[in-house]
């Protein structure tokens, strides 16, 4: 294979070479410290957050990292708190890969990656203590908020987890809890507009007021996926890169510098201490970048609302 590719090289078009000998194609780029999309190895793709694209959801955000596009939406519903934690709400996170996002996904045959990323998101958001579940309580033991956070992949082009996490935290950061109160039957009703009558004779409601309130967030987790190949370390891989060189390492750090997750699911390349340290250092830099992008997007959201 190796020898044959050398032979053919001279007389082959670039696109054909890329298709037939993808690994050799990439290695020739990597040896010059550049990637086929003209990025240096340690540079992430341009990242943007579209604030609140869906007015009908309680909160939403769309994130683009290069071509990878994620749309997250939050729907709030009421639940009965469980008996072991009567003053806590709940958050349910789900990640979907609908067939529109990639030629690999077909209806009725869901993508293998979807439940894995879903589980990873759950783990990271719970581990980071981003949301205090007590803040989701409406009336202790009677009612609490259930936050349904769903992330849809609209376009899959690598580093899916990074984009999914960013869109999830952007939606959570933007979430506002609407004012509600309990009625006589123990059901929760919206107290918007009828606030005066309800707040007076409802002594047993807590956390119900007439204003929308934002959640107080803990330190926010951000992630960076690195691709390991031989001695090279590629940041923010595209789908093509992921399929050719399968060793990935995802570092999740929060804004206070804690390590939330260091995720390396196998792969032929082993991560040694120096490589791991490099990845953490790159992630630290990326966290600063993403924090700034998120902050700008949130202030933009506030401008839209007011």
């Amino acid at each position, binding site marked *: 294979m190796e020898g044959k590719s050398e032979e053919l090289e001279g007389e082959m078009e670039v696109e054909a070479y890329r298709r037939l000998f993808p690994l050799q194609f990439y290695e020739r780029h990597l040896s010059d410290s550049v990637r086929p999309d003209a990025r240096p190895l340690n540079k992430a793709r341009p990242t943007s957050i579209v604030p609140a694209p869906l007015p009908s959801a309680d909160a939403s955000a769309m994130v683009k990292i290069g071509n990878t596009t994620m749309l997250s939406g939050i729907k709030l519903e009421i639940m009965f708190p469980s008996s072991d934690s009567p003053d806590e709400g709940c958050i349910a996170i789900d990640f979907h890969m609908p067939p529109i996002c*990639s030629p690999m996904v077909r209806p009725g045959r869901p993508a293998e990656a979807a439940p894995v990323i879903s589980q990873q998101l*759950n783990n990271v958001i719970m581990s980071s203590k981003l949301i205090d579940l007590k803040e989701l309580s409406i009336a202790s033991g009677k009612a609490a908020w259930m936050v349904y956070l769903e992330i849809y992949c609209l376009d899959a082009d690598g580093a899916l987890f990074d984009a999914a996490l960013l869109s999830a935290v952007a939606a959570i950061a933007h979430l506002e809890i609407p004012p509600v109160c309990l009625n006589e039957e123990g059901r929760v009703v919206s107290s918007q507009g009828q606030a005066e009558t309800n707040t007076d004779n409802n002594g047993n409601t807590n956390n119900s007021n007439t204003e929308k309130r934002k959640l107080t967030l803990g330190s926010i987790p951000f992630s960076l996926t690195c691709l390991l190949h031989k001695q090279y370390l590629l940041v923010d891989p595209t789908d093509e890169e992921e399929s050719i060189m399968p060793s990935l390492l995802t570092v999740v750090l929060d804004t206070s510098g804690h390590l939330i997750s260091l995720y390396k699911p196998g792969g032929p390349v082993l991560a040694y201490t120096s490589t791991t340290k490099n990845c953490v250092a790159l992630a630290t830099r990326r966290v600063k970048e993403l924090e700034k992008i998120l902050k700008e997007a949130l202030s933009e959201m506030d401008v839209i609302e007011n």
Partner: protein
Amino acid sequence: MASKSGTISTYSPLFSRKNPNFTNGVRSDGRHFHECRLAFLRTGAVNAASGSAYAEFGNTKVIVSVFGPRESKKAMMYSDTGRLNCSVSFTTFSTPIRGQGSEHKEFSSMLHKALEGAIMLETFPKTTVDVFALVLESGGSELPVIISCASLALADAGIAMFDLVTSVSVSCFKDDLVIDPVFEEESCQDGSLMIVCMPLRNEVTQLTVTGEWSTPKVHEAMDLCLGACSKLGDIMRLCLKEAASTLQ
């Protein structure tokens, strides 16, 4: 850890149904009866697909991806003509009350029937073209938007068609005809009519009527829809031209 979800029963507290009111011939969103919503169309929304389009009509937002022509499923019999496979699904947060997010079988088959007549299937024998739609937000008249958006995506993918397919629906309220209805209007309409047509060829590929209609009303509604369809066709053509000119 609070990952134990799914089994917990929950309800939405904030859903209050708004009834549409028509005062002085003006609808709740400020439109006149025979006025369509502002439309935004863009091709090439999804890079992973062969062709794609994004459509936004008021609050109704739809993405359609087209894949192929590609190898048909192994179980499929040999076929001289190409196959068309359509699937429509909604996001769970698209509707005012949280939905299930599964495939909408009825819309899938309606979309298939609407597009089938316009595509030159004989140009890609033995293979399948997949048309997948995802409704990001449903603000009424989803199906007409999905159909128009799908034909735009097919054009973006370079699939040969006789003409662009456009679609518009009309709601009937006693004596009034309301074009391009929003969610609230659709939920208390007396009847609805949807036309799918190829405006340049002046051909109708699909016509659905529900509810009670008198013959003159049907005629009036059809004229209204066909007029709107040809305008929508012009907008879509413009969108394709723009996309092509930016490429050069």
